[in-house]
């Protein structure tokens, strides 16, 4: 009799432990499900991935809405598990509020963080701006911020202005 009672007690204990463990596990599964799902999605690959950036309403006049400020295009992109995107053949276009292309930047590959809208690489970047009159290139890394509209090139940078920075000397009238 005593042995039977001890066995029954042990079985009840085991049941209790199981119940105690199952509830948090289920909650954890429910909570983690979207994360797991998202991580599965982030390993996806794609082509012609476009990240647009729009002007803030304060900058625009009343009539304009959703004016495009910049657009980052990746010919090929791969979502990495850490949330970044590894892109190949990146092109960054920036536009003035009146719709003219202000700048075109090209890079053979880059990493892009969709959270802070920044792209960077240790490789080459070439910038063409001012209607093709301003060409800047660097081979040793860059960082581009879509939000702040800045491009920073590392180390040795070569720039060509297709115009003289100084006015030509003209004879006095």
């Amino acid at each position, binding site marked *: 009799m005593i042995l039977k009672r001890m066995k029954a007690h042990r079985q009840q204990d085991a049941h209790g432990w199981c119940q105690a463990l199952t509830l948090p596990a289920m909650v954890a599964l429910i909570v983690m499900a979207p994360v797991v799902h998202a991580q599965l999605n982030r390993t996806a690959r794609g082509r012609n991935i476009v990240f647009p950036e729009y002007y803030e309403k304060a900058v625009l*006049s009343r009539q304009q809405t959703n004016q495009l400020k910049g657009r980052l295009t990746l010919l090929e992109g791969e979502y990495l598990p850490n949330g970044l995107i590894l892109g190949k053949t990146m092109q960054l276009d920036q536009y*003035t509020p009146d719709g003219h292309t*202000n700048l075109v930047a090209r890079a053979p590959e880059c990493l892009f963080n969709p959270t802070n809208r920044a792209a960077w690489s240790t490789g080459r970047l070439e910038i063409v701006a001012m209607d093709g009159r301003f060409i800047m290139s660097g081979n040793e890394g860059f960082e581009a911020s879509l939000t702040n509209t800045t491009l920073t090139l590392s180390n040795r940078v070569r*720039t060509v202005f297709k115009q003289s920075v100084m006015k030509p000397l003209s004879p006095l009238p």
Partner: protein
Amino acid sequence: MIFRVPHLPIVLASLLANGVFAATPVPAPVAAMTNTFITCSNGSTWSPTNAIFRGGVRVFDAQLYLECEHLDIYYPSNNNPNAAAAGRTDAPSVGNITAIVAQTNLLMMLNGATIIGDRALYWPTNDMIQVMGEIVVIETEKAYFYGTNFTFNRRSMQMDSEGPSTLESKPGVGLLEGTNAPSGAPKPPRTRNPGPTTPGKTSP
């Protein structure tokens, strides 16, 4: 065996016409260099309003050679939404430079002048160059200028100096000589020892 060419002049003429014996091509006339090359060693930043060049900056231009450690080039951003929205045509066109600022270890070589200083500013709108520094040295063909703040107007070719400045003529150069000297200006004294005279002829 002898090959006969019946109409040698005609064959030669046709070969010339086809460009076989074409004369040496005349090189195209060399156009004046209008591009500006800027190189730097510590990176560069581009933004819609300015471009920044850092570390060992060198500027090669047809009218200018410049070395400095930090160079800023400002241009109109064209981001004025009111002007753009209203379709105004007086908005600054993209490509015009509004100002150039060169700083630290400045060396500037212009047409006829070499300048050493700490900071230089150039405004293309009024064609003015301002050079500042602890000591600014300007070397021209005839003289050295020492000072702390020089402003040069490229349109009128006039230079102003603010603060203490010194003018030192180069050896053997009279600063008041030349066409710009006023008529009553004193001439520099003649040297007592005239230059070497030609030796007299010697009889053989």
